[in-house]
């Protein structure tokens, strides 16, 4: 009986299945009404590129949500990471991989600064990251206009254009070429998903982060370095955001201060649709990917039907509100079941003095 109802709850609360079905239905529906939707070069390719970039953005938000915090500076961190890469490419002509690494360092450093302020100064994560996004909003365009004349940096580093814009069909082994319409950049996102997925499922740090998110007091009493984990997630978030910014720059070929401007809403949509709890303690990498895929499919479909950008914004905002209400219902249900469990077990006395953060 209990097992059956548990399984039912877990299927109901696992919305990845629902998301996948919804995506399939939408793709079939849009594709049958507008056959243009399946055009590899004009629709599928750009769509998968968007999915790749926004998935990394979604992961950047997801890692912070996993400790029950938020990062409002994802756009700014993406911008400064892309800027860091572009500047070293331009100034020192470094190889591709070094440029990416420098970009990640830039984003990670900004994220770490946010994390330190949140963990040690005890300021709310919204406020710190919001203030950080304001500072970056000013800093990034100022630096761009200082280092380059046209407010954009065009990078000619070998390999960058291939990474950003080539498709599997450009890679041939003998006579067999990959399918058209699958951009190479998608594999960067897949790699990021695998790394983050392994971090949460296999590594000690990942488990510690999740425990911090579900109950920071219990985590602290279990000798988990809570402040350090908070800094870890914010650093990771900054690095992922920087990677996303770099991917956007690589896919368009030029690095501008505008990178990251439309990241914030998407960064929340993906994880929340995918079932990551706002309260922390639970993440879903696949869910984030599916959530992003759903929004990008909707966006692309509406564009094909001639709906303007204003209609898209209205719709995306509405989807966020609906997804949030669903998130709320889930977390209330989760709290109820935890309550029931805690009543049965009658937990030990907590030690208030031991709480430090």
């Amino acid at each position, binding site marked *: 009986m209990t097992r059956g109802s548990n399984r039912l709850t877990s299927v109901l609360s696992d919305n990845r299945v629902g998301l996948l079905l919804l995506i399939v239905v939408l793709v079939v529906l849009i594709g049958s009404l507008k056959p243009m939707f399946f055009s590899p070069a004009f629709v599928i390719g750009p769509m998968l590129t968007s999915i790749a970039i926004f998935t990394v953005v979604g992961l950047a938000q997801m890692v912070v949500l996993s400790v029950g915090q*938020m990062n409002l500076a994802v756009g700014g961190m993406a911008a400064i990471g892309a800027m860091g890469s572009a500047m070293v490419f331009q100034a020192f002509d470094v190889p591709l991989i070094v440029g990416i690494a420098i970009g990640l360092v830039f984003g990670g450093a900004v994220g770490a600064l946010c994390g330190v*302020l949140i963990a040690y*100064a*005890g*300021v*709310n994560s*919204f*406020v*710190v990251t*919001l*203030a*950080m*996004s*304001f*500072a*970056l*909003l*000013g*800093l990034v*365009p*100022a630096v761009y*206009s200082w280092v380059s004349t046209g407010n954009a940096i065009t990078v000619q580093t070998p390999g960058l254009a291939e990474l950003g814009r080539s498709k599997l069909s450009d890679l041939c082994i003998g006579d067999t070429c990959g399918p058209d319409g699958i951009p190479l950049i998608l594999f960067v996102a897949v790699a990021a998903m695998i790394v983050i997925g392994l971090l949460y499922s296999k590594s000690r740090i990942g488990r510690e982060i999740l425990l911090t998110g*579900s*109950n920071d*007091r*219990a985590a602290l009493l279990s000798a988990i370095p809570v402040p350090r984990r908070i800094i870890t997630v914010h650093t990771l978030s900054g690095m992922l955001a920087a990677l996303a910014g770099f991917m956007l720059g690589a896919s368009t070929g030029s690095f501008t201060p505008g990178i990251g401007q439309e990241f*914030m*809403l998407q960064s*929340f949509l993906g994880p929340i649709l995918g079932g990551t709890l*706002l*309260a922390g303690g639970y993440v879903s990498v696949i869910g984030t990917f599916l959530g992003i895929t759903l929004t990008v499919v909707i966006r692309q479909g509406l564009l094909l039907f001639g709906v*303007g*950008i*204003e*209609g898209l*914004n*209205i*719709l*995306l*905002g*509405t989807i*966020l*509100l609906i997804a*949030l*209400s669903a*998130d*709320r219902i889930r*977390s*209330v249900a989760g*709290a109820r079941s*935890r*309550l029931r469990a*805690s009543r049965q077990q*009658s*937990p*030990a*006395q*907590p030690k*208030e003095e031991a*709480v430090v953060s």
Partner: protein
Amino acid sequence: MSARFARLARDQNTILAAVIIAGVIVLTISSSGGFLSPISIETFFQFLAIPIVIGLAQMAALAVNQMNLAVGAIGGFAACSAGVLIADFGVPPWLGGLIAILIGLAAGVLNGLIVVLTQINGFIVTLATMTILSGAQYAIVGTRTITSASWPEIAAIGTARPLGIPLIFWIAVGIAILLSVAYRQTLLARNMLASGGNPLAATLSGISNSRSLVTAHGLSGLLCGVAAFLVLASLPGVNKSIGEDWLLSSFAAPIIGGVSLTGGTVAVLGTVLAATIVRLVDSARAQFQLEPSWVNFVIGAVVLGTVALDRVRTRRPATRQRSRRTPPDAPPTAASRAIDPGAPA
């Protein structure tokens, strides 16, 4: 005597006022007096009115420990709706101005209701409504600019200069005084502060936190509507970019002005003074011909610094205890569940 002086010196408003005076002196000297010319003063106050009002709008939300990311979207949507109604549908300008204010109020109340009904963080609710409203703003106004020639009666307010200072600045000051009195005297505002300071204590004292949240978001929206009215009055026209750049200044004014980010306090005078400082930075930028993005950087960095320093300065053990959730073994009271049903009990 010396104690009073020390307290005065430590007071945030004194520091802000000192910064303003120093800024004015520096700007006056560097412009060799040009900064104090009547035209320059007029422009200074003309563009100070809207930042004050949107700063106060954000302050109203911060007072209940919420945020309103939609200030710009509400203001822009209200201004554009009124503009379209007046120019295209022949609505009398006065009525249009009133509608702008009412749209702001309605949007704010809606934000508050969503926050209360779904129990979602106000930040993320307003992120969603911001996206929706800015989409709606673009949908109704498109790429055109509706000039203020359609509403000469309202535009007359924008050009009026009693005592050599723009009327819209006096309006903003009047609103600030009104709010200052309201936050001291009225029960509704005291209830909002109590809810913001400590929701559990407020509930136990018989205050409805839900009503406080809706009222605070409503007030925030109303002030955005007033800002939209001031836009109609003072700017040469409305288009889709109205409100885009309001977010930073709306947060900068109350945060630098000393409003606590954990709720429960307001600082009307501080917000007004901080908005003035932000305006001074902007004037300095114009005078030294710097990139506009440096202003954002300086203000963003100041906000970040204020946030970090303020918390370190005012941190007390009591506030840290209070912000923690109920201990795991405490029986979940009806009151604590009423406030936060999602809290692990």
